[in-house]
């Protein structure tokens, strides 16, 4: 077989119901245990929320996990506690604290609620990090529809000779469900991934936050608009391609009349 099992796994997860990515991922790992670590590090899943001892909520992912513990961005401590859990260097932790404050503002301005967490780690020639945002409003009992949004922005900041080079990979998971007597059941869910790369002139260490912030803000806006287009434009168009509400002969007749009028106008 020419296709690599890892690539086949990713292809499978791109095709099967995105609402069940977690279950399907576990299934693949069951039949192909060799792929476990690579898949867990590659496949994005909806973020879990935990509360740290400072009383603040933070988000859990593979990047702040060490063994079975997760590190809180607010306290820099692992829960359950670890004696020698991996933490960023002092200078990178300083940036991480500033980034958490900045993206808390970003979260408030764009999400008006939800939870954010930023995790940084050291690289040989720079550092890398992940910016996580989640909004999952509790559906009111009266609401017929509900939704959840998860953003996962992973970046690398590399120190080049003359500039700082940033590479950003962003995934948004957007799940929506709706139900009712006349509607029945509707599930419109999925995820999209996009990338961006940019160079900024070197400056103060604190400039990293502004550079990364701009890139995340630009790409997330692009993705929000793209998802609006795919979820409510494209999906609706495909349904209309499958079945037409109006009768096709009437539609074609209208089109014919329209064509005649156009050609009539042109002849004048």
């Amino acid at each position, binding site marked *: *077989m020419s296709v*690599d*099992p890892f690539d*086949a796994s990713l*292809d*499978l*997860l791109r*095709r*099967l119901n*995105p*609402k*069940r990515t977690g279950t399907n991922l576990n*299934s693949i790992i069951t*039949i*192909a245990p060799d792929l476990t670590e690579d898949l867990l590090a590659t496949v994005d899943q909806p973020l879990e929320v935990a509360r740290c001892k400072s009383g603040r909520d933070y988000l859990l992912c593979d990047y702040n996990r060490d063994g079975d513990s997760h590190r809180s961005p607010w306290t820099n401590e692992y829960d359950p506690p670890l004696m020698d859990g991996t933490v960023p260097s002092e200078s990178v932790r300083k940036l991480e604290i500033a980034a958490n*404050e*900045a993206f*808390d*503002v*970003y979260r*408030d*301005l*764009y*999400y*008006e*609620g939800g939870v954010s967490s930023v995790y940084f780690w050291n690289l040989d020639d720079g550092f890398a990090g992940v910016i996580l945002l989640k*909004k999952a*409003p*509790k559906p009111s009992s009266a609401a017929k*529809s509900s*939704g959840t*949004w998860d953003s996962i922005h992973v970046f690398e900041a590399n120190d080049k000779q003359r500039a700082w080079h940033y590479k950003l990979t962003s995934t948004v998971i*957007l799940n929506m469900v709706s139900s009712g007597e*006349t*509607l*029945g059941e*509707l*599930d*419109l869910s*999925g995820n999209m*991934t996009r990338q961006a790369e940019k160079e900024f002139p070197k400056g103060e260490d604190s400039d990293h*936050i*502004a550079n990364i912030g701009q890139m995340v*803000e630009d790409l997330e*806006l692009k993705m929000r608009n793209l998802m*609006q287009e795919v*979820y*409510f434009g*494209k*999906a*609706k168009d*495909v*349904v209309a*391609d*499958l*079945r*037409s*509400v109006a*009768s*096709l002969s009437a539609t074609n007749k209208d089109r014919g009349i329209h064509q005649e009028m156009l050609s009539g106008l042109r002849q004048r």
Partner: protein
Amino acid sequence: MSPEALEIASNFILDAPPGELQDVRADIESLLGDDASLIEELTPAIEQYNKEQLVSVVLPGGSQRVIVSEYNELPDGRYFDVESQSSWAFDHVTQKASAVQTYTLESKHADIIKSAVRSLSTHLSEHYPALPSSGIYPSTDDSTIAVVIVGNKYSPSNFWNGRWRSFFQFDPSNGSLTGTIKVDVHYYEDGNVRLLTKKSVEAQLGSGASGAELVKAVAAEEKKYQEELNREFVKLAEGTFKGLRRQLPVTRQKIDWEKIGTYKLGQDIGGGRNNDGGKDNECGRQ
């Protein structure tokens, strides 16, 4: 294959999006090896998938698409179609029909079925622009009539595929019509987005309803549902989606990142701090 692996692989098959069964199969083969026994073991799942998804096929020597489903399966495992008066053998793995024979409808509801077949053909050409197929079949005990419709649109080069399915059961003895409509749309360019819907419908026809009246009732239920679905797209876009993330902050300007330290949470944007709501802040705009 272990029973556990077989169950996992079978569930993958049953979850395949419209038009992507072969891709899912190829992925499973990459993971589990593509020996002949694998496909043999997966055949029951592939058969179930074909029948549930109303897979359609053009018969050798024919021109129209005919459906393969649980509703037109004969006791010997062959399938039949009323309009083309044919029955055929079907290889579920290759999705190929063969050994076509003449099929003669024997049912006490033969008249209504035959007239409904004609009306259904008009209904399909008026409302199903893409690869449609339909069938009307008497139930095994000849008590009810099944009406099934499928429309498929495949556009893998643009990374999307879709399928509309209607399943209806009509009981001529009391005029009751029940059904289920399902829509499945998959978009997968640098992502994986899926629309899955399911709606149960019920209608009551007069006693002695004709085939044309039966199809008219089916068409009316489909139309009512499709219009509701279109309204729901707008509601979700304007309500649920907008409540998750704003396009721009209330200030209608992107963030000035150089001054990020001077923003104060919840204070500069009118209204108070609001953690779970979403719309309250908009009221505070000046």
